[in-house]
């Protein structure tokens, strides 16, 4: 146990709560400006003129907003995973970041609902969802589960933070009233009361796990129960969303923790980053496996509607997204996470040379390879920007190995996990984009309607950025209201 006074005072945790500096105000103003920009486009563009200012059209009805909604619901999973590991499995390394993870979960989920709010055509009727709910609709299931999960997460956050808020009343006498308010007036921190908090927290963590699985499954079923879109209508959708949520959620927690470490100099030990990296390294292959299972089923059966979508994904208009997701969003971060951290310079050089030689050889050999080899991968021949696709794929692989062999061994675990987390989060975002957009553009009766087009417009993008800025504001405010790490951790130091 640490004490809050004297030389043991956890300066790094208390410092962010103290006062408001110039940089903080600057950041606040910056986020506010972006929020104002988004709000302007929302109110005076989208609401004044209708959804015609967006890129949506008669072939695509759910665009950038819904992609972000699905993505944000997914990343909110991170909080529950970290909290479950910390509170239920008593994984000590995650105790210091469980609060930040829970805060993120709450903020991401609120942003997700904001995206639903801006995506609908008649926002003045948004409350009809509560007034006239039709319980058969997966969208209403989602409303219910999001509300449940939010309440649960807030309750868990409260129980885990209350004692610290009471302690803060003593540390910051000037803001006593504020911390008392945040603690909802319940200021008993006797050992008995704390033990009760802990017990309740553990019970809620148990409840939260199935709730989180339901949350991501139901969000998947919004799409997965729709038979009108080929490739959505698969029973793998719900498990795929759960795994994607785990991957992107843990990645976002890692990013958030590293940002807090950089911005507020919160002391985060290597063990934490390594732990998050391990969870990521175990869940990425599961995601890859699910994607592979889905693609094999579709490719082997060759069932027209879904097969055309997969072809569009692998070799068609969406190929850049697909390959970027696969190579940069899954393979590269996986290698970053599992590569041994130390390599001699000679080995690194040899690997880089081998990779380059391999890539070059493939490029030279390809045109002369037998047609049966080329037929292994159908539709090999369409080109992107005048250069054949295999070139891009090989170039991607070569650069991947180059990066791995030269850069990785020299960096710290924070940089490696942070980079991997960023790449994974980006990859999952692309995956969500492919899932939401492509089956709408390539619909049934496409032979009559023709393939659709979707390019988000500036007002749409501005509103999206604005909503993320709301999230930034929320984090800034939260950091002033709550200690980001538990003040008293049992046996925190080794």
């Amino acid at each position, binding site marked *: 146990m640490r004490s809050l006074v004297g030389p043991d005072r956890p300066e790094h945790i208390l410092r962010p709560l103290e006062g408001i500096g110039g940089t903080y105000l600057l950041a606040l103003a910056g986020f506010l400006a972006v929020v104002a920009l988004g709000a302007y486009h929302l109110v005076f563009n989208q609401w004044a*003129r*209708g*959804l*015609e*200012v967006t890129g*949506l*059209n*008669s*072939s695509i*009805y*759910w665009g950038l907003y819904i992609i972000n909604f699905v993505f944000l619901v997914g990343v909110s999973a991170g909080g529950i995973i970290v909290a479950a590991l910390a509170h239920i499995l008593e994984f000590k390394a995650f105790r210091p970041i469980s609060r930040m993870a829970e805060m993120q979960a709450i903020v991401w989920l609120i942003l997700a609902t904001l995206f*639903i709010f801006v*995506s*609908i*055509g*008649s926002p003045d*009727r*948004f409350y*009809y*969802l509560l*007034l*006239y*709910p*039709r319980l*058969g*609709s*997966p*969208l*209403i299931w989602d*409303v219910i589960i999001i509300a449940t999960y939010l309440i649960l997460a807030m309750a868990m956050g409260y129980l885990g933070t209350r004692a610290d808020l009471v302690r803060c009343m003593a540390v910051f006498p000037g803001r006593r009233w504020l911390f008392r308010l945040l603690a909802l007036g319940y200021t008993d921190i006797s050992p008995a009361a704390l033990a009760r908090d802990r017990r309740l927290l553990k019970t809620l963590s148990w409840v939260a796990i199935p709730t989180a699985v339901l949350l991501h499954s139901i969000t998947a079923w*919004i799409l997965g*129960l*729709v*038979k*009108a*879109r080929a490739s959505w209508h698969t029973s793998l959708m719900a498990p795929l969303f759960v795994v994607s949520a785990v991957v992107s959620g843990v990645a976002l927690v890692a990013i958030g923790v590293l940002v807090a470490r950089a911005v507020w100099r919160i002391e985060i030990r290597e063990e934490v980053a390594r732990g998050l990296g391990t969870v990521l390294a175990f869940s990425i292959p599961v995601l890859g496996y699910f994607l592979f299972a889905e693609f094999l089923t579709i490719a082997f059966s060759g069932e027209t509607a879904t097969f055309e979508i997969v072809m569009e994904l692998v070799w068609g208009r969406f190929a850049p997204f697909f390959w970027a997701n696969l190579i940069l969003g899954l393979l590269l971060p996986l290698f970053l996470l599992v590569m041994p951290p130390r390599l001699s310079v000679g080995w690194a050089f040899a690997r880089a040379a081998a990779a380059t030689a391999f890539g070059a050889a493939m490029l030279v050999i390809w045109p002369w390879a037998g047609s049966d080899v080329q037929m292994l991968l159908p539709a090999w021949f369409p080109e992107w920007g005048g250069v054949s696709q295999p070139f891009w794929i090989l170039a991607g692989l070569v650069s991947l190995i180059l990066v791995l062999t030269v850069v990785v061994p020299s960096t710290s675990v924070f940089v490696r996990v942070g980079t991997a987390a960023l790449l994974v989060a980006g990859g999952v975002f692309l995956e969500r984009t492919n899932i939401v957009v492509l089956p*709408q553009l390539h*619909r*049934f*009766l496409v*032979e*009559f*309607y023709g393939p*659709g*087009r979707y390019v988000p417009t500036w007002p749409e993008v501005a509103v999206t950025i604005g909503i993320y800025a709301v999230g930034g504001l929320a984090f800034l405010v939260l950091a002033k209201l709550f200690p980001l790490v538990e003040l008293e951790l049992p046996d925190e130091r080794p």
Partner: protein
Amino acid sequence: MRWGMVIDLDKCTACQSCAVACKTENNVPFATPEQSERGHTIFWMDILTRVWGEYPRTKARFIPRPCMQCDSPPCVQVCPVGATYRRPDGIVAQNYDRCIGCKYCMVACPYGARSFNMGRPEEPETFRNYANPDGRVARRRVGIVEKCTFCFQRVDTAVARARAEGRPIKDGEVRTACAQTCTGGAIAFGDLDDPMSRVARLAESPRAFRLLDELGTKPKVLYLMEG
């Protein structure tokens, strides 16, 4: 009573007058060339077109596409506020005062039969002179979904008249705007539950088929295959 429609593709000349008649009957907004270019058009009755080959050796296929009025409508299944619903007489209707514009029904409709009011239509003032004054088809507001309703205003009027006169409604007494205007007489409208009605007899034809029947939506719009 189960209203249905049979469209004989052999008699269809692709003149598209059904699409025009539908627009005037139901006050469906027109679109400027720019709006049309951006895909912001609304068609309750659309003509699906497919052309094979290069001029002069071409082959074309035209399918007039109203709402299929499915007996198990996927749009109704997903609507979160019950704004779209199946009436007892089988018509899939849309409550414009309830719709929040979430577009879930559009995503769930495999036929593309639903349209969204993207923005305010740009039309000359004089267009108001041609508007259908019936309040039941008053212009929909921006930000909600609309679709073909089998001209429920005509159906309801005819049914009410028959009831007032104390007699069953006759086959062919109600005609939707598209059926009424069809130059080739390709569109038949009537009660599928009445075995003697024209649509019920045509539905028994060996040429009869339904669009995307394999999805199990049970459309009440049937087509007769080109000979």
